[in-house]
């Protein structure tokens, strides 16, 4: 249920987004999912890749500043209101969501949402208790070539 997400600091100017992605691609690493958070000045590129240690090494060698964060992957019914049900569980337990984005891959009738929680362990416990399905370890990567 916990996945390793890499965050990369990028300046908000042309070419800065392509450069780290090129470096990762050169290593033959395929990106499972990613998101880009932006401010006027800079952005944070968040990546989930299977070979995160290798990706981190490549990026740091290339001069980028990289952080590692544990995120939680939750299975959400892929229909209107599916996410709302999941959020009700989280918000009901008073767990703070720091950021969230959707997995780019769809499986049957389920979508995967990536959450960064302030208290990931408590969030996992709460979600499990409420019968929510958490996406485990290797499962997300099975759908990535």
């Amino acid at each position: 249920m916990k996945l390793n997400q890499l965050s990369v600091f990028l300046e908000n100017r042309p070419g800065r987004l392509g450069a780290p992605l090129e470096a990762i691609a050169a290593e033959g690493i395929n990106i499972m999912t990613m998101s880009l958070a932006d401010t006027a000045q800079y952005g944070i590129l968040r990546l989930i890749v299977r070979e995160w240690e290798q990706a981190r090494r490549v990026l740091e060698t290339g001069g980028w500043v990289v952080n590692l964060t544990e995120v939680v992957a939750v299975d959400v019914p892929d229909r209107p209101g599916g996410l709302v049900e999941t959020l009700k569980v989280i918000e009901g337990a008073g767990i703070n969501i720091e950021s969230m984005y959707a997995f780019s891959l769809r499986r049957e009738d389920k979508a995967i949402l990536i959450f960064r929680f302030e208290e990931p362990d408590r969030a996992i416990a709460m979600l499990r208790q409420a019968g929510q399905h958490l996406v485990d370890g290797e499962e997300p990567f099975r759908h990535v070539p």
Partner: protein
Amino acid sequence: MAVSLTPALSQQARGRWSALRATFIVRKKAMPMIRYRTRDITSIIPDTCACGRSIRRIRRIGRRSDDMLIIRGVNLYPSQVEAARLRVEGTLPHDQIILTREHGLDQMTVEVEVTAEVFSDKIRALEEVRARLAHAIEHVVGIRVELRLVEPRSIERSQGKAKRVIDRRSL
């Protein structure tokens, strides 16, 4: 008061860049001469003026012998900005001061390279670092500065040392 250029007014000083100094010459025997080093760099223009006046002229003062900057009337040394940066986070290695003039007003932008220690996945945390840096520098300088976080190694280096100040104001 006598105004001269170092070395003392001589044939050698004509046309060469040297520092401007002002000397109080006092006639009383017991008082020493007081000489001020202005640190402004200029040089003597050897020819007489086109208008005919033969008074000795010096070139417009374009730079200083130290690294002091004057921004909106405030005196500032790059070392002060460096000290403020290290006070906020001792591991931040480099900053660069960029001076521009917009609508007649001097603008100061300080670029600081992000390090692994200050980088966070949370934008809120990064913005907090930016605010703390801006506040620390403004406290020292006395004017508003724009604080820009930049990627590592994006501040140009010359011979391994970062170029501290880029002054884009036309003199």
